[in-house]
């Protein structure tokens, strides 16, 4: 995008950057400390954790293998199931929300239809409705429909993402020229072919961004699945780790301590998929994240 072009044009080294780089180094340390703590401490067994060694350095025996084995076998291997659940919910919810947002954003940006203005202002209003306010009534509605404690109870509410529609609308408006669409129509392409073959390829960066944002919000969701699910085999990893944490805190000395090492490793493992997604899709989202804030 234009950002990288500007970056390259600037002179690479300027005097007076060293102090700023030192500030940056301190910031990096601050932002990475929790990760470092988790990486170090997930190598310890409970005596290493509670034995009073340094909290920010490895204990004498590094026990990743044993902790991994415990993490994936504890409670009949429930942790692996939680990870798969998280992936499934994030995948279904993320893809669904993205498809809906692309379609609706395109509709709002490229057609002047009856009711457009009203519908669009309602959409903008909806961006400001806090999603947690919907959790309790949705739960009661779903329980009357027999949907609670199923994967749909988690997936269906995540399909709603008004902000994604707004982002797609802004992006479509700027990235798909009307002239291009008219040219396709003159060549005899129908409305849906125009959308699929002319508009869609131009929307890839925005689609990746919206997909990534929806996958992240679904993967990170806690309140909704906490409320909706009671069967722990359906839990996503966030709710599962929360459950373990509760158990470990409650039963402190009585067997709770051994749980902490797998909670710590479980936390580490649960963040790896999204970090990989962000690192590998960098060139897409860096351009896309700004859509909403720029005219």
């Amino acid at each position, binding site marked *: 995008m234009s950002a990288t072009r500007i970056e390259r044009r600037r002179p690479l080294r300027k005097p007076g950057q060293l102090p700023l780089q030192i500030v940056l180094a301190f910031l990096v340390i601050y932002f990475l400390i929790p990760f470092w703590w988790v990486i170090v401490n997930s190598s310890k067994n409970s005596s290493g954790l509670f034995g009073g060694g340094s909290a920010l350095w490895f204990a004498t025996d590094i026990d990743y293998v044993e902790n991994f084995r415990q993490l994936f076998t504890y409670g009949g291997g429930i942790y692996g199931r939680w990870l798969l659940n998280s992936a499934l919910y994030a995948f279904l919810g993320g893809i669904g929300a993205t498809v809906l947002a692309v379609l609706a954003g395109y509709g709002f940006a490229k057609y002047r239809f009856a009711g457009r203005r009203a519908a669009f202002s309602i959409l903008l209003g909806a961006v400001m409705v806090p999603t947690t306010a*919907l959790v309790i009534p949705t739960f009661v509605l779903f329980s009357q429909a027999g949907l609670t404690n199923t994967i749909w109870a988690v997936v269906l509410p995540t399909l709603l993402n008004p902000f994604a529609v707004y982002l797609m609308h802004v992006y479509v408006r700027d990235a798909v020229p009307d002239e291009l669409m008219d040219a396709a129509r003159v060549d005899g392409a129908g409305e849906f072919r125009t959308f699929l073959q002319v508009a869609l390829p131009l929307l890839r960066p925005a689609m990746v961004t919206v997909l990534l944002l929806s996958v992240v919000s679904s993967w990170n969701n806690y309140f909704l699945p906490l409320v909706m699910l009671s069967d722990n085999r359906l839990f996503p990893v*966030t709710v599962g780790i929360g459950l373990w944490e509760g158990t470990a805190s409650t039963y402190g000395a009585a067997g709770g301590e051994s749980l902490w090492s797998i909670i710590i490793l479980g936390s580490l493992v649960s963040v790896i998929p999204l970090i990989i997604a962000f690192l590998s899709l960098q060139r897409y989202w860096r351009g896309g994240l700004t859509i909403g804030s720029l005219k």
Partner: protein
Amino acid sequence: MTTTIAATPRVRRRSKALRENAIAWLFVGPFGIVFLAMLILPLGFALYLSMFQKALIGGTRFVFLGNYAKAFTDPAFLDGVWFVVRFSLVLIPIQMAISLAIALILDIVTTRFARFARLMIFMPYAIPAVIGALMWGFLYSKNFGPIADFFAAFGATGPDFLSRGLIFYGLLNVVTWQWAGYYMIILFAALQAIDPTLYEAARIDGASQWQIILRIKIPLVAPALVLILVFALIGTLQFFNEPQILRELAAGAIPADFTPNMYAYEQAFQLANYNYGAAISFALGAVVFICVYIFMFATRKRGSFLS
């Protein structure tokens, strides 16, 4: 005969408009259905639920706004609201200042290390709030955290961020850590989009680096700042995940009704009082909506969102 011929183009035009309308609604419709089912219906239902009260004797009865009257005189709810308002007032300026400062630094420093730092500072955004809170909970912990070790090395007792007195700051740190990077990326991208010839012109006119920052950069990223403020406000007022998770680690410092959302959760799912829970949810939603709407309206001229 003549009338039908004269009418044909108009009919055709109208049918073309109808066809366009139908196509547009085919695009917007799927989202529209989800919108009705997952937003309008639950909101309406919350309002409906909130107008009833369940009593042990006499079953459920209609009380109209009775639950709201109860909520707005209920010290547990009001304390929660007061906490999130106070928390937002402290958190949002700090968070915005930090993310703006980092974005400005990254806009000036263009080394490879700066690019690496940008990515690392953004990283916490990819972490679930639950895990972020848990990680900081570990760091704060007297059992396995480094803070206690660090102060013990100097023969002092470290601050306990999980205690009743300091939990406010403990949470402040968790949320800042989690979101500053995301806001920084938005601001950074807005800064990168500024036409560099503006800086050249300003330098020729004798402007210093500080003047360029204050007079050109910050005013030009104002729309992004407004957007961030709105996100932060909506997010903080519905505070739930972090205090809920730290509750287990911070024995006694965080009560079950710490924030309005936690209170609604407690009412609905621990006390099975869905009507009152729905009333609290709806009241909180309405408060957030009105606050944000007023704010958007006040900053409409400078913001790009909504204008």
